[in-house]
């Protein structure tokens, strides 16, 4: 079975082509190239390198977010359009979980984060291969939660460096961070995760934003105020 995996949920771009148990080709980049410009040419190029034609793809795995709204949408749109027109199954996987799976052998808690501005992060907490929590959360609350778990914590993700000082201050010697090689999403990892999942109905695949839009939040507040 030939798989194509795509993750555009943040600044990094990750694409991989996996055939059965073999990673034919994989691409990772943290360069600031607009995903809208870079993703399709990168897919085209990687498929050429792996000597795979579009109609040979048999399954698609896509990172569904959270992350940058526009970024996530580009990967999801490309993934679902390819899956739909090639008539192959699509699997959508949490972008936070994909990052955390970069450290599968860590004994303890793995925490993947993406910066969400104003001292907030998108964070995933995973222990013993289980999802403990995936949320849009303030960094302070996240660190309190992790502190209370009283276990060793490994932080993963490019944005860890933005908050590292504060993380270390709270969690002290309970915390480590992954090295740079594991801070980028890996689309081959994404595909391996997808292999253990059920496919989604292609038209219903949408990003997992973990946040409603500001306009909707304001509208809902307004509704409540008016007693609706």
């Amino acid at each position: 079975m030939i798989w194509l995996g795509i993750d555009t949920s943040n600044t990094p771009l990750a694409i991989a082509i996996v055939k059965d148990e073999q990673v034919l080709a994989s691409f990772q980049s943290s360069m600031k190239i607009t995903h809208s410009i870079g993703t399709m040419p990168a897919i085209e190029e990687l498929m050429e390198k792996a000597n795979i034609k579009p109609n040979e793809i048999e399954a698609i795995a896509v990172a569904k977010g959270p992350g940058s709204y526009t970024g996530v949408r580009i990967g999801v749109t490309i993934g679902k359009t390819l899956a739909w027109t090639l008539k192959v199954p699509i699997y959508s996987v949490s972008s936070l979980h994909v990052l955390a799976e970069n450290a599968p052998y860590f004994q303890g808690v793995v925490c993947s984060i993406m910066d969400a501005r104003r001292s907030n992060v998108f964070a995933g907490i995973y222990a013993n291969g289980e999802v403990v929590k995936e949320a849009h959360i303030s960094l302070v609350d996240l660190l309190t939660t992790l502190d209370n778990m009283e276990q060793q914590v490994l932080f993963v993700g490019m944005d860890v460096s933005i908050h590292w000082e504060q993380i270390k201050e709270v969690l002290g010697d309970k915390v480590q961070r992954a090295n740079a090689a594991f801070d980028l999403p890996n689309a081959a990892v994404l595909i391996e995760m997808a292999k253990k999942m059920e496919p989604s109905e292609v038209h219903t695949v949408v990003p997992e934003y973990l946040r409603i839009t500001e306009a909707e939040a304001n509208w809902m507040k307004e509704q409540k105020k008016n007693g609706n």
Partner: protein
Amino acid sequence: MRKDQYILGIETSCDETAASIVKNGHEIISNVVASQIESHKRFGGVVPEVASRHHVEQITIVIEEALKQADMTPQDLDAVAVTEGPGLVGALLIGINAAKAFAFANGLPLVGVHHIAGHIYANALVQKMEFPLLALVVSGGHTELVLMKEDGQFELIGETRDDAAGEAYDKVARVLNLPYPGGPHIDKLANESDEALQFPRAWLEEGSYDFSFSGLKSAVINYQHNAEQRGEEINPNHLAAGFQQSVVEVLTTKTIRAAREFKVKQVIAAGGVAANKGLRNSLEEAFTKENIHFYVPPIKLCTDNAAMIAAAGNSKYSAGHLSDMSMNGRPGLELNSWN
């Protein structure tokens, strides 16, 4: 005999997710539009992030429906045309990336189309375009006079310096507490009115084909405020009629003058505001007098749709102008000729 040419058009520049298949640039085989208007109504206008989210939910459903209604498969197509700009960038990106993925998967050429070129080519779906042609494009985002000397040639001879006509309509509608989108409501009130308030006309410098509607908009809003402060009731019909008369008179006069100057064979109105009855009637009457062929496509081809993108894409594809996989959404894209 030349082989028939089938283009799939995709449009997501604002709040409609649309796909369509057009044969030889003039025959609609299928035309699917998923409107988000119901969702944006509660906000009183289009919220870009909400629009982008809806486009992702709809995009594959809409393209599938366009193929199904046409009873065609991707192998029956010759090319994929998609709106490249202008528009809301986050919204454009959904159509563009879907179009790229679809074209790549099926080995089809890709054509990026200017949204305004699309509005103009909506005309090709109802009649043969004859050149030189003058197009008045009026919508929520645009007020433009475009001269076409040949197929695929565009010359922008006038544009708005501030608000688009449709934008002014929406803002005046808000002052009158009319629901979004306000244009059709103002048109209705104006047409029912037996009297019109007097508001200024913005002619700009002599000979200019440009437009300006922000002064008019402010005059209308001020009038309403002043009346309110004096505790006076104003008749919304009279206000709507006065506003609409000013917009329509300026649009009609400048369009006529341009049609004369450039000796055009055909004048068309395009864009969502072209569905406005007041404007349509005024232009029709004026051009009948002038003996110039004037036309407005049916409403569903005036508002945003993908058939128009496929029609323009057909001309651009035939001229050999293709895009590649690095195409990006361009919110400020200029209208360039492809011939």
